[in-house]
């Protein structure tokens, strides 16, 4: 597996677009908490008056709230990382290098594994950056931090990892099916809204299955946290049930990619 990862990284490490997109995504992760702070400061400066409440005191970036808040926002941005996956994999088809890789001695399974290894590494790297960003931001803004509080809710970072990994595997599948990068990115962008519309229009009798649709089940791992600031009840933990469902979808996607590769003339 490490050999296959190394092969894929040889292809990517001199590819400028790969680094540019990765760095942009990294900046996005680091930038968002500062963006939130600037927004709160702005609210304060225009004198928004929440019954004499200082907007800076909303605990959005305080431990332990921060974990669910930031990971939820980050899951909305995964399309940016998916673009990297779509471009690098569709390149293999447009340059026909996948064909040469097989000729040279990879099996189709090896090709799949090498791409999955890279996707895993990208997801892992992003998650570590999220963890670091969360820790530092939390340390800066939380009044009276205690060590035990810091990691309370850190499992949301794991959920973020799984959500990102699942989406990237989904993007891999779409690329294999559609081949062309612009089309694939377009489909990936409209897929989620389409899924939401579908779920909203399910007949009453089978309404429940909407929660098990691919991206919906993944997004169910981390629920929208913000209603809690207007005193609504939310799911403030990672839903293990949907972790399991997400894992199932990932296995299914990988199997679909493998079947498609196996059946194709390259």
């Amino acid at each position, binding site marked *: 597996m490490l050999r296959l990862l190394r092969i894929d990284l040889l292809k990517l490490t001199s590819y400028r677009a790969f680094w540019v997109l990765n760095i942009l995504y990294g900046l996005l992760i680091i930038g968002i908490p500062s963006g939130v702070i600037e927004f709160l400061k702005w609210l304060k400066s225009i004198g928004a008056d929440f019954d004499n409440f200082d907007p800076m005191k909303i605990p959005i970036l305080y431990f332990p709230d921060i974990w669910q808040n930031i990971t939820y926002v980050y899951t909305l941005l995964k399309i940016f990382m998916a673009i990297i996956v779509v471009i690098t994999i569709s390149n293999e088809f447009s340059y026909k290098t996948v*064909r040469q890789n097989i000729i040279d001695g990879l099996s189709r399974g090896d090709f799949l594994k090498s791409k999955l290894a890279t996707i895993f590494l990208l997801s892992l790297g992003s998650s570590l950056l999220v963890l670091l960003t969360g820790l530092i931001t939390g340390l800066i803004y939380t009044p009276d931090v205690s060590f035990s509080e810091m990691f309370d809710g850190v499992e949301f970072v794991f959920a973020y990892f799984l959500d990102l990994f699942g989406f990237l595997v989904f993007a891999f599948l779409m690329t294999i099916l559609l081949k062309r990068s612009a089309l694939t990115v377009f489909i990936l962008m409209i897929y989620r809204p389409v899924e939401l519309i579908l779920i909203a229009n399910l007949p009453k009798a089978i309404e429940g299955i909407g929660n098990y649709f691919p991206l919906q089940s993944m997004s169910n791992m981390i629920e929208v946290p913000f209603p809690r600031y207007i005193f609504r009840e939310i799911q403030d933990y990672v839903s293990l049930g949907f972790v399991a469902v997400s894992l199932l979808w990932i296995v299914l996607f990988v199997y679909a990619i493998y079947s498609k590769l196996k059946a194709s003339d390259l």
Partner: protein
Amino acid sequence: MENVLSIKGLTKRYGRLTAVNDLSLEVGRGDVFGILGPNGSGKTTTLGILLDVINKTSGEFSWFGQPPTKEVRKRIGAILETPIFYPYLSAVKNLEIVAAIKEAPTANIEPALKKVELFERKDDKFRTYSLGMKQRLSIASALICDPEVMILDEPTNGLDPQGIAEIRELIKRIAAEGKTIILASHLLDEVQKVCTHFCVLKKGSLLYSGSVDEIGAGAVTVEVMADQALDGALKNWTGAKEVKQENGRYVVTLAEDQSAVGLNRYLFEQGLVASHLLTQKKSLEKQFLELLAESENA
């Protein structure tokens, strides 16, 4: 002799089109084997199946007497149709990927690049290469694993005469090292110049398979003209395989071990004098066209 490749009843259908039709072939160790056929005759499809990038419809094949696996492909150096590399990477980086896939030592990269005379340009990006350089790089890439077999598909396609000559020289040099080479081409001339054995494909079917020498040997003809009629005498000559009359000339196909000298001596002994004698080695081209024409009539 041990076979490097053996194909039995290989067939590939694309819907109603049969691209490869019940093909059976044997390629021996050390052969330079030409797969000759006009465009669309199924050469690339056949090679694609042998290299596992195209799924066969039916049939069997084995490399080195073993069922085909990725491990076997690591011992083969092959290029199909056009050179394929990552355009944004340098030659060296591209070959590092090939070496990693084939589990070949990266130390092989430098000698391979030198052999194809690309060492000076090794750090330039692939997309800046001319077509001839791209073809040469793909040969270098096929050499990375010090392969037992090299597969080349139309390696001189689109090159200028100098480029063609360079590539053919290169192939001959590699063949001289004793490597088995399988070369697909629609150019007879190329097969004749480079190969020891060849087969002819047409519309996916095998028309002929044999050695290049063999087909050259039985194919000498002599054109004869004289003031007298010669048919009787020529037909009685034991050295003639076939005698034909074409616009006032006789075309005699010689039996093996015969030559125009023998023919002339025989005529003289019969009291006949030829006014014109011309030996013609029937070119592979002629035979190739004949083979294609025969299959047309069949």
